[in-house]
């Protein structure tokens, strides 16, 4: 049986499909919208999409898994993507990545245990003359150094206090 939350999500997914009814080959735009709203594509979204779009579940699943952008679970509260492509390597991207992995205590592709930061690799952000480049929550940054990265992470932590650090009673339970 679906939980009430699941029913709401399925309804919302159907509404998003409906919003793209007139679009040709609408699956990618729909998946982007779902991920924008929910942060990831749930396994339960797949049969809903398949039914609404009249394609097989295997087809939907195949698309979701083909593209690196689509997540199967939520990311950390801050997503840091560091460029590993050639032009950024030429100005020390690998050293910056090693620093990030060490200071966050996670490898590329992982989320810190407290759910604060997801660290990812990306191949080129179109900022190849001002590398090393990275994106913090979708915002592009150039000429990154360990110090700048630390400052950006501190700023994003301050701007987006952890949802589960504060209980409904307002007390901090997780610091």
């Amino acid at each position, binding site marked *: 049986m679906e939980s009430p939350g699941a029913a709401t999500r399925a309804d919302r997914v159907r509404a998003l499909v409906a919003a793209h009814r007139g679009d040709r080959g*609408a699956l990618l735009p729909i998946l982007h919208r779902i991920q924008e709203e929910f942060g990831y594509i749930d396994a339960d979204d797949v049969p809903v999409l398949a039914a609404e779009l009249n394609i097989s579940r295997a087809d939907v699943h195949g698309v979701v898994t083909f593209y690196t952008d689509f997540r199967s679970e939520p990311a950390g509260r801050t997503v840091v993507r560091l460029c590993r492509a050639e032009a*950024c390597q030429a100005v020390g991207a690998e050293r910056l990545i090693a620093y990030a992995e060490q200071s966050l205590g996670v490898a590329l592709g992982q989320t810190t245990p407290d759910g604060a930061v997801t660290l990812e690799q990306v191949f*080129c952000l179109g900022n*190849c003359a001002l590398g090393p480049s990275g994106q913090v929550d979708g915002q592009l940054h150039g*000429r990154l150094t360990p110090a700048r990265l630390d400052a950006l992470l501190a700023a994003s932590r301050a701007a987006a206090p952890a949802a589960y650090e504060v209980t409904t009673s307002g007390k901090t339970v997780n610091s």
Partner: protein
Amino acid sequence: MTTPVTVYVPRDSAALSVGADLVAAELERVAAQAGRSVRVVRNGSRGMLWLEPLVEVVTERGRIGYGPVAPERVGELVAAGLFDGADHELCQGVVEELPWLRNQTRLCFARVGVIDPLSPEDYVAHGGLAGLRAALATSPAEVVAEVTESGLRGRGGAGFPAGIKWKTVADTPDTLKFVCCNADEGDSGTFADRMLMEGDPFTLIEGMTIAAYAVGASEGYVYIRSEYPDAVRTMRRAIAIAREQGWLGDDILGSGLRFDLHVRVGAGAYICGEETAMLESLEGKRGMVRAKPPIPAISGLFGKPTVVNNVLTLASVPAILADGAAAYQALGVARSRGTQVFQLAGNVARGGVVETAFGMTLGELVHTYGGGTRSGRPVRAVQVGGPLGAYLPADRLDLPLEYEAFAAAGAMLGHGGVVVFDDTVDMAAMARFAMEFCAEESCGKCTPCRVGAVRGVETIDKIVAGQDPDGNLALLNDLCELMTEGSLCAMGGLTPMPVRSALLHFPDDFTARTERRAEESAGRFEEAKS
């Protein structure tokens, strides 16, 4: 009240990446404090990226540039008289007179950095729509002929003549045809597509509309990679504005031409830059490469005749139609006509966009424009044409920037990206990365690419570790041969290019690290003795 001073602060994402938004906000704040009335215009970038954020102030002498301006320095600059174009150590003088810009031939990038990208008035005032109007005044067949005569070749990598592609689509009868712009720009070292979309989006819209008129298409898509959120936003807003202006829609410029345009966003797959994978992705499928034939011009998006062109190809078209094929064709050398938008990247002192006629040497670009490395160390290698392009050593920089000369040297111009490395680069690591990238980004359709790239990584690791180097070098060569010969598309087919060029020009980097260390200390011993 005095008339406001106009100040330009780029909104290009490269400029934003080093603080342009903060600079713009700070300028407004400091101006208000000083009681100066200013009008801040957010332009694209001039492409002198080492100067970003580059602030320009309109004066009687012209637009005076200051850069790179850190937000913290705005107060000091204003106090020194920035709003009056006063001198300062960050003052670069009249921007348009800077040799770096003045010596370029900007056709495609003529308006980028000059205008407010989303102002239709600016666009028209700076020559926008002249190409489309000229096209609509002639027949579609004449437009195709004009593009063919100009010698324009595809800027996305393969260099296929644009006019011939358009003619095929025009000659394939169908009630529904498409124009698709490839804005996937996945190559490291390239950013010109992004800068054009962020800095002058109407030019791309105009180019696509001309293509639609020429081939009889009614619907268009711009496929932009998801790594470019600013370009996506700007293109979407520009399309909405163009519809309001009657530059898109059911009766374009009152000519009866019907064409509409949509932005589609990729999802993090390099292979979706390959045109047939892009079409699959546009159809809502996995980005698997299609076997050719049929070519997209005959059976493309949803099986319909489709023009697929790169951003820069399409953005070159308005100028060709406005000024005539002859003017375009007069630029360049041999079979490389017109201008190419080169992008200087990596370890380079003055990185950015250099649009110039084909034929300049690579060395001129790297040294005269680029100013050598950013680190100040010697240039050791330059990769041209993205991750599938060759690595060239410092003594091959005499190569003229031209399709055929590069092909003859076992290299390719590709999308015009030039990535500079200094003498600390480990070329075995770069060769390994080329294989790793291919393994990561392969669509998986054919074995030589999917399996060969993984084997390539392992084999390079063994060579570098000193395990049977001769045997493994032979194996690596065989793998490269197999990938070149047996891959369906250029992903697997060209990955051997960076690998082999690294092996050819930098063989010492592949000898075992232990061996190398021994040799180095022996060398030092020799030096110490002498």
